[in-house]
């Protein structure tokens, strides 16, 4: 759809909106899932929306609509003006003139669209067959494919105009395995925009064997254990920890990292980067305010190197935005993409071999209720295995892993060398010296 941005900026200016910004986003998606050797659901969509921000009477108004017609610009402008009458906060009135340079990111792969839907669906049936064939104890399998394509354009009355285009697909499966009347479940998801990168044999074998290994779990005795966290668990926890580096949380007094810049906040073994320009589908050339992103060190040998800023919070601290302004409802909040933990030298196997008694955690759940990212405290339902005499032995279920993120990342015994991509996070397994585990 062709959007006449200048017409919008003129209309806004004529009605007294000093500076304004308009964003047009369009999405299309296709999803399919199969169950019991048949297509279970299939869906397709195309949607679009217009989002506008504008400075009126020294405050920032916001509006959005997906009812796109000849009256949409009027609606957006009037709605910004109406809301501005009541808004009392005027420290976030910045429409950005633009960064000097924007680095290109490659997040769109046109080959993906050229592969037929039937070929993609056929892949699901192949996955289903492989999963059922793996072991007779695999009882139920749901396999799905979803593909998304998104284009957005952001422009403002200073003449800044930026475009982004992304596409990706996800293949996911959920299996349940049954033995002795006991049921366990396991799921996995693969995400990329290059269809050839999906290795069906490896993926299915890993998923099915994980499910089978979980069968006949035991509940461990409550106590403190050496705990080895797998990459998925580390990814979830490091992303939660980093929310405290938001300058907004710092400025509002709700982050534990107040006054901790350039201080030791974690183990010397821990180095963490944010690399928004990394070559993957999560890459971003600019943030939601139009500020160019860049790769940066967040934690170096345990020392906090920077807070994350958008334009508003940067102005308050008299620094430059770090390109971390992300739209959160009607406001520009703070977020990040592509977090990377620097891997260590010791392999996963060697790390396990040195543990006399410990617990290997492979899954945590209930994050929204069991983890307080502001205080760092967590009490999370977990699954995993017992480690005895240097070997991973019995599967565990119905256990709770408890601790504090800040203490835990201070208490690192070993960072393994086995880095793995977990969505937009690349992290290795990490051994923690001691954590509380509740069970029997």
């Amino acid at each position: 759809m062709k959007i006449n941005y200048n017409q919008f900026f003129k209309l806004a200016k004529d009605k007294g909106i000093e500076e304004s910004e308009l964003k047009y986003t369009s999405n299309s998606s296709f999803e399919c899932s199969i169950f019991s050797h048949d297509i279970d659901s299939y869906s397709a969509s195309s949607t679009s929306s217009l989002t506008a921000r504008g400075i009126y009477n020294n405050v920032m108004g916001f509006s959005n609509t997906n009812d796109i017609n000849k009256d949409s610009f009027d609606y957006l402008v009037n709605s910004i003006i109406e809301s501005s009458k009541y808004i009392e906060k005027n420290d976030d009135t910045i429409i950005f003139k633009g960064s000097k340079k924007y680095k290109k990111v490659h997040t769109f792969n046109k080959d993906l669209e050229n592969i037929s839907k039937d070929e993609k669906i056929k892949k699901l049936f192949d996955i289903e067959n492989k999963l059922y064939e793996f072991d007779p104890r695999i009882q139920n399998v749901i396999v799905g494919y979803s593909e998304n394509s998104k284009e957005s354009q952001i422009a403002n009355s200073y003449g800044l105009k930026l475009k982004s285009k992304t596409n990706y697909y996800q293949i996911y499966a959920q299996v349940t395995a049954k033995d002795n009347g006991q049921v366990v479940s396991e799921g996995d998801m693969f995400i990329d925009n290059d269809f050839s990168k999906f290795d069906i044999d490896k993926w299915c074998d890993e998923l099915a064997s994980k499910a089978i290994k979980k069968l006949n779990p035991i509940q461990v005795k409550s106590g403190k254990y050496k705990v080895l966290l797998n990459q998925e668990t580390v990814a979830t926890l490091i992303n939660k920890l980093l929310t405290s580096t938001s300058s907004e949380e710092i400025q509002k007094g709700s982050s534990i990292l107040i006054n901790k810049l350039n201080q030791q906040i974690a183990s010397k073994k821990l180095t963490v980067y944010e690399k928004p320009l990394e070559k993957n589908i999560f890459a971003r050339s600019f943030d939601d305010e139009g500020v160019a992103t860049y790769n940066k060190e967040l934690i170096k040998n345990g020392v906090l190197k920077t807070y994350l800023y958008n334009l508003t919070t940067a102005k308050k601290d008299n620094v430059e935005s770090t390109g971390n302004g992300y739209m959160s409802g009607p406001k520009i909040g703070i977020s990040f993409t592509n977090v990377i933990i620097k891997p260590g030298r010791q392999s996963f196997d060697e790390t396990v071999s040195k543990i006399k008694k410990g617990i290997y955690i492979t899954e945590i759940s209930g994050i929204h209720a069991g983890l307080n990212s502001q205080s760092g405290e967590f009490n999370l339902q977990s699954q995993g295995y017992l480690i005895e005499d240097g070997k991973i032995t019995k599967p565990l279920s119905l256990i709770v892993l408890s601790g504090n993120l800040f203490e835990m990342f201070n208490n690192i015994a070993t960072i393994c060398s086995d880095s793995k991509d977990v969505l937009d996070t690349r992290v290795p397994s990490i051994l923690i010296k001691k954590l509380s585990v509740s069970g029997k």
Partner: protein
Amino acid sequence: MISNKLALDIINTALKTGGDFAEIYIENIDSTTFRIENTKVDSLVSPKKIGCGIRILKDLQSVYGYTNDLSKKSLLKLADDLSKRFNGEQKIKLSNFKPLKHAKQISHMEIPFDQVDKKEIIEFLKDGEKQMRDYSSDIVRTSASLFYEYSLITIFNSNGLHIDDHRNIARISASCVASKDNKVQPQFVAKGTKAGWEFFKNEINFNEMCHKNAELCITMLNAKECPSGKMPVVIGNGWGGVLFHESCGHPLEASGVSKGLSCFAGKLYQPIASPIVNAYDDATIPNAWGSSNMDDEGHTPHKTQLIKNGICVDYLTDSFNGRRMKKPENGASRRQDFKYEPTSRMSNTYIDNGTSTKDEIIKATKLGLYCVSFNGGSVDPSTGEFNFGASEAYIIRDGKICEPVRGATLIGKGDEILFNIDMIANDLDLADGMCGAASGSIPVQVGQPTLRIKEITVGGAGGKLK
């Protein structure tokens, strides 16, 4: 928004390759959100949303598509594209719809929100927010917000149904963050309704709600870490019902049951709970946050008994999953918006009153945990394994409620915990929440009287309970 003639064209286009059912779901939504943060109006937004979802069913297959482009060209193209997933001959051709029906309004809005002066709403929120700010100097962040939404939903389907529903929902919420000695404690409270402004103004006391939120925030900030291990747990009424919602409500939804992916699949008319447990899902309670005038397939909402004296007597069933189960729908098909295909979901779901009193239950507990309320939880319906994080909890010693504890997490299995309920009080209450699942995030009520679970695993960092 869409003429009958166009709707008819869409339905017949959708069915041209042998589909046995087609449906058009159209929504037009206007909402407004006020947000006050740290004493100032931080944002006031009124987004507009329209959209259409088209669904075709053929035996046990479903095809769904959606768009916000409601032009004739776009909708007919969507119906045509979707129909290509099947390759049979047209079996059903609809010649017209039955006369338009309006869903019966079960809620009553005396003062519509859009007729209230925005300044009155802002002052109301600021008063509440001030209660939290004034409560303690350890409270560093406060916010209060009000959200209301009006929507018009129209449904056409190949059975000739043409029905519309005017819906309104509103929710008020308050949150604060306390910080002291390297500890940070957030606390949140909310109340929703399908009535109008009069509900917030006259029926609830927002200032008191905010005051209690701040009080709890400070209590929890200073609380010790919860002990861990297996212990008896008394669960509070109202919000405590999230336990039943997660551990037993979700596995009773047809979406999992129909595929054998639920721990309650195949358990109809069998005991799944202790004989003192009776549970309902009731979408017909006037003005309640989880009620509906019609479900999202246009069916009349029901009050459905799910568990009777411990026996599973029904599942929450939508028409599509009902096909696999050979069971009629019971008004439980819901979705967040046009972007979601509807499926079986809960509405206002609760465990009914028992014969004990709260005092009797506390007195009968020598050493255990009293969980008043939860932040939420999650469940894997295939295994029934669940977890809940308590937002307010105390240790019970010698039949008395004693010190508060933070970070209590309860874990267990839905199909086991129901048998472990050994006392149920008579103080049933319902509380409002949002429930997220396959068909999006929807308003629901959870509820129960105070009850006791004989033994459950509690996780926490506070060592053994002594």
